């Protein structure tokens, strides 16, 4: 990482800490903001967060790996999460996923070479009455058919 990038990351994290406080209870909110902006929480950022909150970097890493929506390694620009839980599963999640895999050319759990997509399964999105459901970043789509899902992904930048 370039020095300039590091400095701007530090500045950004310092700003968050100023807003949210130095207490450890601010940790997840800070990580959430970093995740949103950078689509991951790079190891340098983790150490800066740890330094500013006076905790150990491994604790930050430990927390990141616990939560599904936080990640230390970069993912694609668009994270596609298809709900794999029972009601969506019953409503044809498998067909949906097969179609997406065919169309994007990667398997679930993978990131496309151009970094455009990461495909993931997720547990219950709370849209069980409108399954199958899928989230693309923080937008959710419901009552999908394979065709509709592919169309949505084609429209994503």
């Amino acid at each position, binding site marked *: 990482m370039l020095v300039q990038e590091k400095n701007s990351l530090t500045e950004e994290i310092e700003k968050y800490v100023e807003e949210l406080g130095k*207490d*450890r*209870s*601010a*940790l*997840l*909110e800070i*990580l*959430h903001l970093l*995740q949103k902006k950078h689509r991951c929480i790079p190891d340098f950022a983790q150490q800066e967060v740890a330094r500013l*909150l006076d905790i150990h970097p491994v604790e930050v890493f*430990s*927390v990141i790996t*616990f*939560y*599904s*929506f*936080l990640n230390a390694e970069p993912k694609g620009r668009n994270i596609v999460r298809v709900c*794999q*839980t*029972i*009601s969506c*599963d*019953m*409503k*044809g999640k*498998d*067909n*949906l996923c097969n179609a997406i895999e065919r169309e994007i050319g990667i398997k679930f759990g993978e990131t496309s070479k151009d970094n455009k997509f990461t495909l993931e399964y*997720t*547990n*219950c*999105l*709370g*849209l*069980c*009455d*409108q*399954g199958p459901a899928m*989230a693309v970043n*923080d*937008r*959710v789509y419901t009552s999908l*058919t*394979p065709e509709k899902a592919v169309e949505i992904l084609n429209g994503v930048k």
Partner: protein
Amino acid sequence: MQNRKNRKGAVLFTDYNRGRSIKKALSMSREEVLFEIKESKLKGRGGAGFPTSTKWMLTAAAKSDVKYVICNADEGEPGTFKDRVLLSEYPDLVFDGMVIAGYVIGAKEGIVYLRGEYEYMLDSLNEYLEVIRKENLLGKNILGKDKSKEGFDFDIRIHLGNGAYVCGEETALIESLEGHRGEARNRPPFPVNSGFKGKPTTVNNVETLAAVTKIIENSGKWYQEHGTDKSTGSKLFSVSGDCEKPGVYELPWGTKISELLKIVSAKNTKAVQVGGASGICLDKSQFNRTLGYEDMPTGGSIIVFNESRNMLKVLKNFMEFFVEESCGQCTPCRIGNVKLLEGVKMIERNEFTFNYINKLKELGATMQVASKCGLGQSSPNSFISILENFKDEILNTGLNSTSFGNGGNNGK
């Protein structure tokens, strides 16, 4: 969020003018408010069914200058989405309930732990909070409670989860709020004595808080008139699966499963999972059972399966869920769920012995009593009930095909 759907219900899904119950509560003493809640016999709607008045009384009695109200909106139980509906369509009921809770227990801060999956609601909820802040339903000296004395200050912030089912467990939720892994705590001490940041904290489900608002509006006695003796009031049911009209239904406690199936137009129903993945699975012979604390307490998740469904696949889906969502700290839950899932896969491959399946059921019984928190204590429920109630289909036919059954509408 503004366009409230035309929902039908007797208690929650009714008209309400925001602030009305806050105003009423603030005109009463704390004890009087508590009395109404007690009179209503309201129990926690997240599923555990702990009496709300007792929880509040204990938090109110705990000595501390700082206390917290936490609204548990980490709705993650498979098949549950009632809190999504409440928060998006009835935020007035939920937030008013939080203010009332704050008033009763003596808290100044309320925190909504909103599951990360509901991030799309965050902006509108914050806007709503801003609106009621302007109306002085939040903030300093709410509604000018008492001009002579110090007024009642209370504010609410929303904390976004980051994708972890276990954070719906109240102590894991608190750990998460404190910036830790969502790992359940040892109890005692209970959150009512030592919760968020070690301060007395009441953690209530979204629906519980909404019910509080209605109870204060109409009185505990009025609430008691709904439902049954031991299960007062109404319950929101999140219905999904094989039915024509999935969605959230407000029904009085005491409704029979068969009645509910009629309401949602479920046909050829073979099984009903009550209480989500951590609940239990009923076969036809049990559809006359009653939803309520007397018989079938539940957080409200109802998943309907018709005749075409393969119950082993259903169970496999549940067990995969728990293997992933266990926090991983305690042995029975972390490894136990893996073993139960392995058992399901053995059956799938027709490589099981009855002897071993029985051992796994015994293991499930151990998990129910020895796991550290509710997750591990309830995760074997579906394993045990599905293998018991659908024994013939699963263990005696040897027909464990890999397909799910088409249910008529899986896009084929």
